[in-house]
């Protein structure tokens, strides 16, 4: 197999364990003073790239490049990717809110510069749940895509991906270069070890701007309002089966 370069997209999002709150202006969720981490699906993407290299050897996977589009703090997320095992990082720095199409356009330019033969992305980011970037990137590049991967391998220079579909497992094959988006069960990401965290500080991290890449990141959608879901009504303890039946019939109206 000829030598591969793998590009992995990572996004900095509000930590999955944080209970999000809508901000007072109702324009989005509160992000100030809230813990941020790498999007969990992107952690899985990085892990998969590292595992491909561990499985096939350094000659087969020559380089893993992490890329993130976002504000200055996105560099923390890139450092995490580097500490997990990526070799270098590209930061597309912008404070603007990015829609999936803008991210896909930015990534397509990074792909043009870096020339990877495999791009692995999380299937979605847990903050906006769009699930579009990988598919749009495949469209822009005219590359094959294998989404929602639960198993990834490279055989004879071709990509083989197992996808979890409604009826069971679907195995697909595609020629490289290709796009893969990761599902939750693909792998369990590793912890960043101290020696690797120290090494990560010395790994190269390049910063570019959307303008450098010649991409217009103007949003096409405008967020009108963000509201919290209705508060759940508290449960009730009933004293008898009769009362339960009565409530099911007359209050819940399910009987």
């Amino acid at each position, binding site marked *: 197999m000829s030598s591969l370069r793998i590009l992995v997209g990572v996004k900095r999002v509000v*930590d*999955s*364990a944080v209970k999000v709150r809508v901000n007072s202006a109702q324009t989005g969720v509160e992000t100030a003073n809230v*813990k941020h981490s790498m999007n*969990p699906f992107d952690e899985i993407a990085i892990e998969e790239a590292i595992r491909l290299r561990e499985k096939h050897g350094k000659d087969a996977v020559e380089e893993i490049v992490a890329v993130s589009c976002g504000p200055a703090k996105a560099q923390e997320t890139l450092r*995490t990717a580097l500490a997990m095992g990526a070799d270098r990082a590209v930061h597309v720095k912008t404070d603007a809110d990015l829609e999936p199409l803008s991210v896909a356009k930015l990534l397509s330019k990074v792909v043009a510069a870096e020339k990877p033969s495999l791009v692995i992305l999380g299937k979605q980011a847990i903050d906006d749940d769009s699930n579009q970037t990988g598919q749009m990137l495949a469209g822009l590049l005219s590359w094959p895509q294998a989404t929602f991967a639960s198993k990834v391998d490279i055989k004879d220079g071709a990509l083989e991906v197992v996808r979890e579909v409604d009826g069971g497992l679907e195995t697909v094959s595609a020629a490289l270069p290709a796009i893969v988006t990761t599902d939750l069960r693909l792998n369990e990401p590793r*912890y*960043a070890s*101290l020696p690797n965290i120290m090494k990560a500080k010395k790994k190269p991290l390049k910063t570019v701007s959307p303008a450098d890449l010649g991409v217009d990141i103007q949003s096409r959608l405008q967020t009108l309002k963000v509201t919290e879901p209705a508060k759940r009504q508290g449960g009730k303890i009933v004293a008898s089966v009769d009362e339960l039946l009565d409530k099911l019939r007359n209050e819940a109206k399910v009987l």
Partner: protein
Amino acid sequence: MLSAVRAFAISRPALGATATAAVAAVASRLAAKPRTLAAFGKDSRLYHKPARSSTFKKLGKDDVRHFERILPAETILATPAVGGSADPIELEGFNADWLNKYRGSSQLVLRPKTTKEVSDILKYCNDQGIAVVPQGGNTGLVGGSVPVHDEVVLSLRNMNKIRSYDELSGILVCDAGCVLEELGNYVGERDHIMPLDLGAKGSCHIGGNVATNAGGIRFLRYGTLHGSVLGLEVVLPDGTILDNMSTLRKDNTGYDLKQLFIGSEGSLGVITGVSIATPRKPSSVNVAVLGVPSYENVQQAFKLARRRCGEILSAYEFWDANCMGAVLKHQELKNPLSSDYPFYVLIETSGSNKDHDDEKMGALLEELMEQGIVEDGALAQDDSQISRMWAMREGIPESLGKTGPTYKYDVSIPIPVLYDIVGDIAGRLETAKLYTPGEPGNPVRLVCGYGHIGDGNLHLNVVAEKFEDRITNIFEPYVYEWVSSHRGSISAEHGVGLMKRDYLGYSKSPEMISYMKRIKDLFDPKGILNPYKVV
């Protein structure tokens, strides 16, 4: 036999330069009075069970009738033996502790909903001379929360309301039966945390925490409950309600009576309400797990952690390879490190400025690696990794429990010699041919140690095939002698309960024990509250 042991406690020789000689003397005194250990029940359960005191009234149907008059029906669980209709199996969870080591045979469980009901119950029991065991979440480890014989179980689980919360001062006032984790969630939504946290948080009650002066994993940062508890509401055995529900941080008016109830293990009064100061939730938390080659290095790392991260250091926990083996076997967790080490350390920082904390923690970890104090480590990158790392430490007791019946010793020892006792005990068990490390099929499966280094608190655990005399005799009273000779405490955070009452003399002088008894007599002259325990 009890009186003999107690006499020994009173005549305990002073420990000092001649500690070893004193210990030898103590040992020979004990040897002269052979201790009889008795197994109770069908399964492997073993402990010293004092005889039932004949001064206590045997519960009768009239007593249950009386409780039915003063309490709502759903709060009473009485077996047919005392005129009730509850299946004895329903009382099982109140009669046995979670280690399945201690077991009583109470026929009556009362679960009052109000302080007034608690008062009415105690007044009646005191008048009638009926023994009572107060019970919270029943997660204790020293047999303090279950009846020894037929004491009435007074469960506080129905008293579980939050009374008030002041978001400005962070002062929480609540019923004693509130579950610690639920309180944590409640104050968590208001950007605060409980000043204590422990593995049993999902079951244990705040009242029980206070009654046992529980320690846990936030002790290093937020200190003892003697500091964070601001007020208590306590019902005395005669029914008097001692309302000391202060929400004041400062109150120097006379004797601070609430302090007596903190750690009294339900032997002086029943705590029904708690007023407690909750700290602000730290906005930045870092957790790392380290692989450490020796106990000496565990100490060096602690020293450096205090020097570099003193003001943000919020936990420093350690466990040994045997603990790790049990956790990885019994929990759905993977080792954050890529190989095995003799010791593991979990270090946590909590602060309010992420960049500042990250930088300090990063510098500390780098220094630890560069100096070779630790050999490997992993730094949590997100909150789910933080909780998995904590789950590893907090999963130790449960994992050991799944390995087999576990002898637990919770002791305070000066940090430099803290871990020596684990090796000593393993050596004694090996000499007695009861244990071969790493080899299955022996009466003892595992000897291990873990705990809160920052607080000088070791949990020495011995996992056996079953609880039996020849094993118990290896470390009782040896462990207590050992601890005593190093001027440690035979109970760091688990309390005395039934398990350690007869060994109190190893940590407290005869004069102190004598005054403890006078305090007990003052509050509970008939001795109905949690009898056979503590003093």
